[in-house]
């Protein structure tokens, strides 16, 4: 790689766009919460008004997504490469893909209930990205100058996004199924129960979550294989139990276990769903704790 011209000024604008999207996501999040509470209202009139509320929330989310996308694209242009080479960039791109997939799946009616989770989680990711993970635009170190950066990491982002949406649906499933919540007499439990009553039935939630997990699993397998091919080119071996490789393997194994569990008597249902959530916890652990505190070859956060 020769003579790259970075554009830190453009990156300023990229950050402003991300901040703008965060403000909009906040509004969208609150509107979705408002919508849920309206939807579960005992008054018919309020329930009817919920539809327009949902529509506005969706419009705001789309607007937030556009600002978010502009931020990611500008970051890429400012750095003169794909915008997913360090933790900050992986976070903003990953969150963008999550929202993108969610919006693309909006036609699946049952998925809409996780809008609160998706906008909330995106806010959380963007918040930590801008405050904890931010680094100025830098060129790629020679080890990252590879076509596999584009492929391996992009697919890892996609896989994470699918797992994420599945995890949101799984949480919704567990809440819907929660015996303790159903038996509780606390006021808050009653409110929660009313809100949950507008959720799709648990079987549907479980099925859609399964589908997203299956796609996530296929993409994760690809990430693992592509990573091994890249590792052979860069480090002379396709597999060396580097900490990141270990955790990629652990995540793969847990989700493989989840897929087997759905087909095993006594393990399908809530237990399998819990297993997929353990898998997603491992994904988050891999991205945060392993990236920042574990010693290994994948040291690309760019943080000191």
């Amino acid at each position: 790689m020769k003579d790259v011209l970075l554009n830190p000024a453009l990156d300023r604008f990229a950050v402003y766009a991300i901040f703008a999207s965060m403000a909009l996501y906040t509004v969208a999040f609150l509107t979705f919460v408002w919508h849920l509470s309206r939807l579960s209202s005992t008054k018919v009139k309020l329930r009817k008004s919920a539809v327009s509320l949902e529509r506005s929330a969706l419009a705001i989310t789309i607007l937030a997504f556009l600002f978010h996308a502009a931020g990611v694209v500008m970051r890429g242009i400012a750095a003169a490469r794909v915008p997913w080479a360090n933790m900050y960039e992986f976070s903003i791109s990953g969150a963008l893909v999550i929202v993108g997939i969610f919006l693309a799946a909006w036609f699946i009616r049952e998925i809409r209930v996780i809008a609160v989770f998706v906008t909330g989680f995106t806010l959380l990711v963007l918040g930590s990205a801008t405050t904890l993970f931010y680094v100025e635009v830098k060129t790629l170190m020679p080890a990252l100058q590879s076509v596999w950066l584009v492929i391996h990491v992009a697919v890892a982002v996609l896989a994470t996004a699918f797992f994420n949406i599945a995890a949101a649906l799984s949480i919704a499933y567990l809440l819907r199924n929660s015996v303790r919540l159903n038996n509780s007499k606390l006021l808050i439990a009653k409110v929660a129960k009313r809100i949950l009553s507008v959720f799709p039935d648990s079987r549907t939630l479980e099925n859609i979550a399964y589908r997203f997990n299956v796609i996530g699993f296929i993409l994760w397998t690809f990430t693992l294989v592509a990573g091994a091919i890249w590792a052979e080119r860069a480090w002379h071996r396709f597999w060396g139990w580097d900490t990141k490789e270990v955790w990629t393997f652990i995540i793969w194994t847990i989700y493989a276990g989840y897929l087997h569990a759905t087909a095993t008597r006594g393990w399908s249902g809530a237990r399998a769903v819990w297993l997929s959530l353990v898998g997603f916890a491992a994904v988050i652990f891999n991205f945060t704790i392993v990236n920042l505190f574990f010693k290994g070859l994948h040291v690309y956060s760019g943080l000191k």
Partner: protein
Amino acid sequence: MSLLSNVPQGDEILSPKLGWRGWLRWTWAQITSMRTALMLLLLLAVAAVPGSVFPQRSADPNGVTAYFKNNPELAKTLDAFQIFDVYTSVWFSSIYVLLFLSLVGCVIPRIVHHWGELKSEPIAMPRSLSRFPAYLKLPAKASYSMPRLAAELQRKRYRVKVTPAGISAEKGYLRETGNLVFHMSLLGVLVAVGVGGATSFTGQRVIVEGESFVNNLAGYDSFSPGAWFDANQLVPFSVKLDNFRTTFDLRNRTNIGTPLDFEAFVSVREGSQAISERGLIRVNHPLEVPGANIYLTGNGYAPVLTFKDADGNISFSGPVIYMPQDSNYTSLGVIKLPDANPKQFGVISFFYPTVATLKTGALTSRYPAPVDPFLTMNIYVGDLGLDSGIPSNVFELSVHGLEQVAGGKSGVKPIKLELGATQTLPGGLGTVTWDGLKRFASLDIAYNPMQIWVLLFTVLAFLGMITSLLTPRRRVFVRRGKDDFEFAAMAKNDDPKLEGILEDLVKFLKRRK
């Protein structure tokens, strides 16, 4: 009589007697059950965790050494449990061996069964259809044609069996085929990885500009062959490092000094060839020669130094490899002069490509390229311990028992050198001259003949997995009753499309040709 017989003999046996064959069969049934497979899979995930928490000998041998230094007692205990070799440990290995045993035991009968299914027709129509997950019923009409419906199902790639009772149709056999291919391919991956580990080798060599690496055992700084690999199998070739070029960023303010590219320009001579070919090794772009791939894994500076004793005799002359300590290539070099006159001494030296002074007065490097190169040296006199026969690290000088005569607390300032300059050493040790500056490259040389098989089986497993996960297995039954048509469908997994499939069939039937 059969050993499995549980007919009580006499009075003494009340519980069923299994016998050793029975126990074997019972154990096998346990191992091959899905529940056990699932447990083993999850156990494998858990067992992999410690390898990411504790340093591993395979991935981070220095980390293990440091761990032993810092917690000697704990390290010994942990080592007894193979915590520093998790992935080759007895316990980790037994989990995956059991898992694969379970896999084989589970998959082989399924292959036999699936083979039978592939060769036979769809299953016979069940008696009652109304309990199927998808079910439709409509009044019969004369225009409704069963043969047309059968043809339509065939067109939709169903396997169709027509009987007087109605139509049985089935599709999605690929779901099971893909599943079986996936699992068998995993076995292939495991075998290929295992054989690859035994037949491959890796080695390291640090090489300075102008030097050559010859591919034989003596050419390596370190060499780790697999169990079945013999050093005689090394394919003869040599690689000469002609020039090592680095490119550091000077253009972008926030990025100054960041490496943009490392390029090792080499001349390669294969076998007994007289002519050498030019080659280029870069990070992510290894050089491939028959029987080996050569990877660039590191680089740094090698100042060329000459040490002369008081009489002017050369005690050392040549390039010295300095290991980079930070991103601006502040580098540390060690020189041992066991044959120096009047006494042997060692040197710990720092190299600064672009020297700068910190507020504390300490020196540092501000930029990784040699804009203003500078050397400092601390000198230690005493027995270097090289004659004892104990192997020592060439990059480390154990100063224990040595007397420091320059730098540090010795009272004498460290030797400071600019490129091309000569300095006198204290205590009549002679002089040192900095003649030139070269670069070095760290190369990994590796070859795994089974790699292509690992890739092949992995790709096969991946394709099998996708096919299996994305192909729905569906059964459709159509029964012509006296006054009505019954449609039913089921799938192996939850399938939201079943209703739609039946509706489409009804629509087709109602169409007038």
